[in-house]
Structures are given as C-alpha cells and as structure tokens.
C-alpha cells in the first residue's frame, strides 16, 4: 500500500511513482514475465526506422495496486499488495487474418518506408499505427491506390493517455473503403509538449470539423488545416476539456447535511 503523502493525490496511481516490488505476486500473468514500466507509444523514433508494422511498442498505461480504488490509508482490505498492469492490446505479428493481410501487403508496397510502426489486430478490428510525419502521405495513398481505396474518412477522435510519456495524445482515424467494403483504423500519437499532427483535410475534406473538434477538446494542432478554430466550445474558452487533467467542474451536492462529491472526484473502482 502506498503510504499516504508520497505525492500529489492525482499522481498516486500513476505507474512511474511505483517501481515494481520484488516478489509480489502479479494477478496479470501475461505481463508477469516482463517489466511493468510504462512504455512509450508507437511514435518511438527508433521504432519508426523499422520496416512495415515492425517495432510497435507495448503500451502499458499504468500499474494498478490494491483493489476497490483505495489509494491511501492503511491496507484494511488485504489486497494492497496486488498489482496489475494495464496494457493496451499488443502489436500483432503476421498473419493478421483475412483481408487484413491483403491490406497490409498493399499498404507495404505503397506507403513510405517506416511510416507504419505497428499493427494491432484486436476484437476483429485492425489498427495501423502511423508515424505522424508520414500521416498525410499514408492517407493519400490509402485513398488513391485502387486496391486500397479508403475513400471515406468516417471519424477523427482524440484520446489522451497522460501516462504514456512522449505519446500522450493520440489521434484515431476511422477510414472506410466503400469500394471494397473494409474498415481500418489509423492511430497517430504526439507528445503533449509538441502537439502537432499534419491535417488530412487536403485528402479527406470530411475530416474538417472532426479535426477542429479534436483541437477543441484535446489541443492537438493539425498543421495545414484551413481554419483550425474551436467548433463546440466558445471561441474564447481556455483549455481543452476532454484532456484527462481537465476537471469536470462538478460541485458538491448537499442533501440533508450529507454531501455527494462531484462525479470525477468520487472513488474509482478501476
């Protein structure tokens, strides 16, 4: 159990605060043979130099300790020494299965070398992790190559992983090929300190408002966007509300003397 007062409360459950304790039994057996330190995202520079889909890094978000969301005080539950690594699905190696291999082969032939740094097949969906500097080129060949023809950019959304050092902000593109009836996902990451990703509006005009929303909510700057302004929040709004460190702004609710905390400050059972 973490002794109270080792750091700011919001950081208590962050992985970097805790080195794995020797001899502790781990609940998650798949992660038990390697270290549990959070790894950087797929935008790792050395990984980008590998071939197509090679070098994807594991993404350990954090290491959770104990149970029932208890993060301070004495370990009365008896579960305090339990630790579990929270790991996003690992990069997959070939064969990916079905048409995923066909698309990967076609892509490998046309995308710039080193642009796809990882391939994740999970729950029947395929994700190509793309180095951000190659995103526009990859999007263009995905749309224009007749055998790929992903002509429809359905959605762009951001995800904020504050614990993935150097790859805190992720932008996820859902592309669809109506010609071949296929869907793929592209994932790009960038560090919070340099939140720049090239805009794909030149290739997919449909991404216009989606990128504006991602800028609005996550503060990702889409370089080359024709008019990157806020779209949902007021123009003069400070901050980017869907980042994990942005408070929800709830207030305590008092009822007959008892106080119900705003939802984001209540106990999390994760």
């Amino acid at each position, binding site marked *: 159990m973490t002794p109270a007062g080792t750091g700011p409360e919001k950081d208590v459950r962050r992985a970097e605060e805790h080195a794995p304790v020797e001899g502790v039994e781990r609940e998650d057996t798949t992660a038990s043979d390697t270290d549990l330190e959070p790894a950087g995202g797929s935008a790792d520079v050395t990984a980008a130099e590998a071939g197509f889909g090679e070098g994807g890094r594991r993404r350990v978000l954090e290491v959770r300790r104990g149970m029932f969301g208890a993060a301070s005080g004495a370990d009365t539950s008896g579960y305090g020494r339990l630790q579990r690594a929270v790991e996003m699905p690992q990069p997959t190696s070939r064969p990916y299965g079905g048409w995923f291999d066909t698309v990967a082969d076609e892509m490998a032939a046309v995308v710039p070398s080193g642009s796809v740094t990882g391939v994740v097949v999970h*729950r029947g*969906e395929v994700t190509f992790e793309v180095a951000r500097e190659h995103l526009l080129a990859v999007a263009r060949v995905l749309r224009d190559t007749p055998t790929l023809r992903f002509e429809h950019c359905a959605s762009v*959304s951001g995800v904020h992983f504050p614990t993935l050092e150097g790859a805190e902000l992720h932008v996820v593109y859902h592309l669809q090929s109506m010609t071949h009836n296929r869907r793929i996902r592209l994932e790009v990451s960038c560090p919070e300190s340099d939140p720049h990703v090239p805009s794909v509006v030149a290739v997919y005009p449909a991404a*216009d408002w989606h990128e504006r929303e991602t800028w609005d909510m996550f503060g990702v700057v889409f370089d080359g966007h024709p008019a990157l302004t806020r*779209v949902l929040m007021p123009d003069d709004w400070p901050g980017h509300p*869907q980042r994990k460190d942005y408070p929800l702004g709830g207030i305590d609710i008092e009822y007959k003397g008892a106080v119900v905390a705003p939802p984001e400050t209540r106990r999390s059972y*994760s």
Partner: protein
Amino acid sequence: MSTVQDQHVDPFGAAGEPVEGRVYTASGQDWTDIADRQAERGDERIVVNMGPQHPSTHGVLRLVLEMEGESVLEARCGIGYLHTGIEKNMEVRNWTQGVTFCTRMDYLASLFQEVAYCLSVERLLGIEDQVPEKATVMRVLLMELNRISSHLVCIATGGMEIGALTVMTIGFRDREMILDAFELITGLRMNHAFIRPGGVANDLPDNAIAKLRDTVAWLKKHLPEYAAFCNENPIFKGRLEGVGHLDLTGCMALGITGPVLRSTGFDWDLRKKQPYCGYETYDFEVATWDTADAYGRFRVRQEEMWQSLRIVEQCIDRLEGMVGEPVMVADTKIAWPAQMSIGPDGMGNSHEHIKHIMGESMEALIHHFKLVTEGFRVPPGQAYVPVEHPRGELGAHLVSDGGTRPYRAHFRDPSFSNLQAMPIMCEGAMISDVVVAVASLDPVMGGVDR
C-alpha cells in the same frame, strides 16, 4: 430605436481589426431605418445571422449567411450551442450508466446511440455472440420504429418550414403513436436508456405484441397520406426539386452518409453492406433516388419508413414465438439487475429478483451490489461499431483501460458530419432554399454538439 454604432468599429471583429465599409447592428430597431441607410450605400450585401434561435434551423443551429439581396454568397455554420459534454461525462460513470448519457445525444433517434454504444461495449467484452436472440430482435424492432419516428419528424418539420403545416400536424400525430409504443416497451417516450450492454433492460410486457400490431396498422393506414399530400404537390415540388443539390462526388468527399447519399442513387446502407444485429436475416430493400436534391431525400425517407415497417412486422412475428426467452446475457457479472414489474404506482422492482437476492442467494446479493456500485470491468482495447442511423453512419468509438468506466467515448454523429455540406448546398441559392437544404440534411443539434 436606431442603434447604428460608430461606423469605424466592428462590434463583432477582433480588436484593431480594420472595418470594411459601414457596420450596422440590426437588432431590436425599426427595419426602415436600416433599409434607408443601406439604400444610401448602393449595394445590397448584408450578413445575416440566422439562428441560433430560429424555428427553421432545427434547434440551436446558427447559420451565418452573407447575402447579396436574397442570394446567399457565403454560408457558414456556427455550432456548439447545445454542447453538454456528454462524452466527458461518460468517462466518470460506469459502462452501464453510459447508455443514459448517449441516449441524449441525438434525441430524435436515441435508440441508435444506445445500440451502437452497447454493440461497442459488447465487442470490447468479447460477448457479441452471447447476446440473446430475443434482445437482438427487440433492438432491431426498436431501432426501426425509431427510424420511422425520426423520419416523421424530419418530414414534419421540413414541411412546416415551407408552410405545409398539415404535414407537420400529421407527422407529429403519427410519431406520437410510435412514442406510445416506446413508452409501453421501454417505460419512456424519449431518452430510454433501455438497451444495455449484454441485452435490453426488460422483457416485453404482455400486451406489447397487440400494441405493436395496432401501431403497425395505424402507420399502414396513415403513411400514404404523406405521399398523397406531397409527392405530386406542385408547390411542394417547386420548393424542393433541384434544391440543396449534392452529387455523389460531393458526398464522398465530405463523408456524407444516410438519405443524402442514397438520394444520389448509391445504395449504401450499413444494414445491407455490413450487417449487424442480424439485419441480413430480414427482408427489406434499400431506398434510393437519383436526383440528389431535397426532393429525392424526401422520397428516400418516405420509402425508408415503409421498409422499416416491413422489418418491424418481421420482428413482431419473431417475437411472438420468443415468449419467455432471456433478454440479457447469462453472465451475472455483466447483466445489470434491471428486472422490473408493474406495480400500482406504474413501475417497481421485481419481487422475484428481490426475493432471490435478499432471501435465497448470498452470491446473487454480492453480484447485485458489486455490479451496481462498481460496475463491470471491460478489457483494455478500443472498438468502433458503426450502425445505420436515420441520418447516416453513427459510430461509437470506445476506448477501455480495463476499468469499470469508459476511458474515452466518442460518437461519430451523422448530423455532425453531414452538416459540413451546408455551405456547398446553399451558396449561390436563395435564402428560402437554405431552409429547405438544411431541412433535407435533417441535422439534430443534440447529436451535432453532444
């Protein structure tokens, strides 16, 4: 009272921004004053802020129109007036509670958000094939009824905006019949939160089949009225034909889906192309039209209501033979204990459930308690599940970090994407056509702004 401002200051420009020409603020004053001053100027270029409070902008949509006389030179959308932070809020509630939030996005088609969200959660849980057949049929039934009611509102409000008030009154009358059926099945007319990860909240009530048969009979009798009133009505056709034109190329570039895409003749419908919820087992056609204008979209929606009615009938037939089958996954670690029974006050807890957890099984009580306080855990990963919403492709992109709450929930709302086509549909047209073009896109601001 005239409120012409200092002519060299633009109240809406940034500080220090140079002012081009004279600036008038035309609000709350005598229009003749403005007209007289404008007459001195010699041109007719004005900027009109249409909305966000305007009856024909479908909720709080703001259109910024640069006009030359009655012609629109440039059009831009201002959105965000109904942004309520639903996606952010979902991150601090458990997976089941998320349904209560996403149902409020596109409030005219709330069951579609629920289905897309639940399918996405089920994919992350890996229980897609464990959802009981009856729950899936009920989902399809509710979605198709919801599609009819959503199209009815679209046609009703679209008619009202061009002066066809009878279309509005009959549209809302018929929608009311569907909402009554929803109330019987889900307990609520709107914002149902009825579809839950793993199935649906409750089984059909005993009188549901009879009620649904009545509703179908009512719709079969009254849906032809829309065709009789509108299809060949010269005023209606005069207002809609050739208006809001957007061809297939434009639709593909702008990511437009739904009736707008199908009005170009492309039969893209996810229910056929990428079936989910067993749509491949239902007998129906995809409605298309070939004029790529507002009239074509009206006809596509009309035909889609008939096709949805066909699916609804097939669902009712199937449900008749499924009495007593489960409507929630068997895994009690996921199945939210929502069983209800109708008490004297309308609704209440199921006595069998209370008896089971309080009197018979300690484990059942523990499951109940854990599920209601903590919720269930969803393995880490991300999923994107698209469904065919009345307005196009609705996608639920969920990211889980293995916890009891969504790490990130994003909805690709079709109204949000489709609204990007407003400028290309309106620029160069008359202001009266803007109303028709926006109505043919059928944006619902609750979904656009989320």
